[in-house]
């Protein structure tokens, strides 16, 4: 059977293009099918979305030639402060501080806006001779044969490849068409996401305030700007989101406090209902799932994109080594190596973020005391603190080569 491409990737967000570039570098012919038109990603106007990229993720982006295209539009994360807060009284005293002085490798991560990362990925894909982008196309059918997989697009066009990778998010059509079920639950919370401009400089410090309804994350962007991820119950979030900008800011101010001076909105406001959705399998014959398609997790630790890029690094490495051996890399026994590599890591991260969320998202005085003691205890133990910093920087576990900044 004549193949159009070695590997078909469904989803043109962030993980899909990153995987396409990593695979293209390894000599695979790759086609990316994106439901959106290319022009709608990486638009000029700041929309308020940003990512806290762990150091390991930054290394992967560097290794696939994307980081340099992001240029100066990044903010190094020099310090993370975690504290317990209560609305009305603002953030509590800082009880847990991580700073990059305790990490030999440099900043523990970088903040980057969605528009700059999306644009850098799109430019790199366009420039890559092994990567083809089909934009504004939906996949309507997916058929697995003995040595290939065929996708049908809404235009009627068919594409055959050795395998298909679903980078198509929490409601992955690739997973559904492959008969892979999902498990998960609703956290009962919605994240309110926006960017703000503030009076005083942030000095590269990220904050996480644990409030009874859920955490409030303040992540530094270039200049005097921060990205806010603010978690509330579904009802409360809906109420706040319906307010006008002035009313929205009135709600935010007491939670945020005044440590950065006067604040105002800079960009659009988004809401994301929080739910956990994990695919029952990350692979099937000629099918692999990456990022949220495999595991949509709570954004409490900002690990969604970082976990996705770990998937990218692991899958690219498994497929590249298989190709160099002459193996039929779309076969289930090859793809199971990827699943085995990533599954344990993902399961432990899901459990950890859930535990943290349950422990912190309430106002029970006993739990409050426990977590204050816990935060203080971690802060008092340098080795434990360093362990957390390395974890936050994504430097723990069996790291794929690209996340170590090495070529496969």
């Amino acid at each position: 059977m004549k193949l159009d491409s070695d590997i078909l990737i469904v989803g043109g967000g962030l993980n899909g293009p990153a995987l396409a570039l990593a695979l293209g570098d390894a000599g695979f012919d790759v086609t990316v099918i994106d439901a959106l038109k290319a022009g709608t990603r990486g638009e000029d106007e700041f929309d308020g979305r940003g990512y806290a990229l762990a150091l390991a993720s930054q290394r992967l982006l560097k290794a696939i030639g994307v980081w340099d295209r992001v240029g100066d539009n990044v903010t190094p994360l020099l310090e993370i402060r975690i504290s317990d807060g209560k609305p009305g009284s603002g953030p509590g005293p800082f009880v847990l501080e991580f700073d990059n002085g305790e990490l030999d490798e440099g900043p523990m991560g970088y903040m980057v806006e969605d528009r700059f990362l999306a644009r850098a990925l799109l430019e790199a894909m366009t420039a890559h001779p092994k990567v083809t982008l089909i934009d504004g196309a939906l996949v309507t059918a997916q058929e697995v044969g003995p040595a290939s997989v065929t996708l049908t697009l809404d235009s009627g066009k068919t594409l055959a490849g050795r395998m298909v990778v679903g980078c198509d998010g929490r409601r992955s059509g690739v997973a559904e068409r492959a008969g892979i079920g999902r498990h998960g639950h609703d956290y009962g919370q919605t994240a309110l996401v926006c960017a703000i401009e503030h009076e005083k400089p942030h000095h590269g410090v990220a904050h996480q305030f644990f409030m009874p309804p859920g955490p409030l994350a303040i992540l530094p962007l270039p200049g005097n700007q921060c990205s806010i991820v603010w978690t509330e119950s579904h009802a409360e979030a809906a109420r706040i989101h319906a307010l006008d900008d002035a009313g929205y800011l009135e709600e935010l101010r007491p939670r945020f406090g005044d440590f950065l001076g006067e604040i105002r909105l800079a960009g659009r406001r988004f809401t994301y209902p929080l739910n956990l959705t994990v695919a029952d399998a990350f692979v099937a014959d000629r099918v692999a799932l990456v990022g949220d398609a495999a595991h949509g997790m709570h954004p409490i630790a900002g690990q969604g994109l970082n976990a996705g890029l770990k998937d990218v690094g692991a899958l690219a490495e498994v497929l590249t080594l298989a190709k160099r051996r002459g193996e039929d890399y779309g076969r289930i026994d090859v793809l199971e190596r990827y699943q085995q590599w990533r599954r344990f890591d993902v399961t432990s991260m899901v459990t950890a973020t859930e535990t943290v969320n349950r422990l912190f998202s309430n106002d029970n005085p006993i739990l409050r005391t426990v977590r204050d003691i816990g935060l203080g205890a971690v802060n008092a133990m340098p080795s434990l603190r360093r362990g957390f910093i390395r974890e936050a920087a994504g430097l723990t576990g069996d790291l794929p080569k690209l996340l170590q900044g090495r070529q496969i």
Partner: protein
Amino acid sequence: MPDVQSTVDPSEVAKFEAMAAEWWDPTGKFKPLHMMNPVRLDYITNQIAAEFARDLSDSLPFKGLRILDIGCGGGLLSEPMARLGAEVVGADAAERNIPVAQVHAEQSGLEIDYRHTTAEAMAEAGEQFDAVLNMEVVEHVASPIDYLTACHNLLKPGGLMIASTINRNPKSFMVAIVGAERVMRWLPVGTHDWHKFITPAELEELITRAGLRQVDKKGFVFNPVTWSWSISARDLSVNYVTTSLRPA
């Protein structure tokens, strides 16, 4: 021995497809071979690439090389070699394997010359190759020295033979016979005759007598904790592999 190169009889295709599916099912009857295949391929591809100065990250690194896979079975080694660009002949003494391997290669979009023949018959016909893969065969043949001499003759001067087999010692009896055949049932009982296993020293002596020069030996080691195989420079106590050259 007849040289069977016939195309597959259409009425038999369904049967052969079912047999091919069985050969290539990673959880089926040939599971132990599938589990071991990545390390076998790592060893083979790296040895061939080093000898012929090829870069495995190229798209068809073995282009221009002629490779013989002896005891090809369903084509578990022949197909990867073809995918890397080599011109492959797969030979098997068991006639039923040939159409099975042919059907699967066709499904995979690969061109491989599968033949029902033996190393001795091919050597007699004067065939020559850049590399001969002789994996898990020598412990099954009637006369290892005659067989290895045929392998020597099948190599072009400067060509390379990769041979793997099983060591003969109490551990290999426990692992390969008791463990793999009787306890785990990975292999049918009687697959191996422990007395025909060969120690690394005996194999090197046979290889040297056949006119080849052994240049490398490594162990294939199964780790029951990670449930995976790896290549070891020191542990040749059960499965092991060697590389030899026909002097130019």
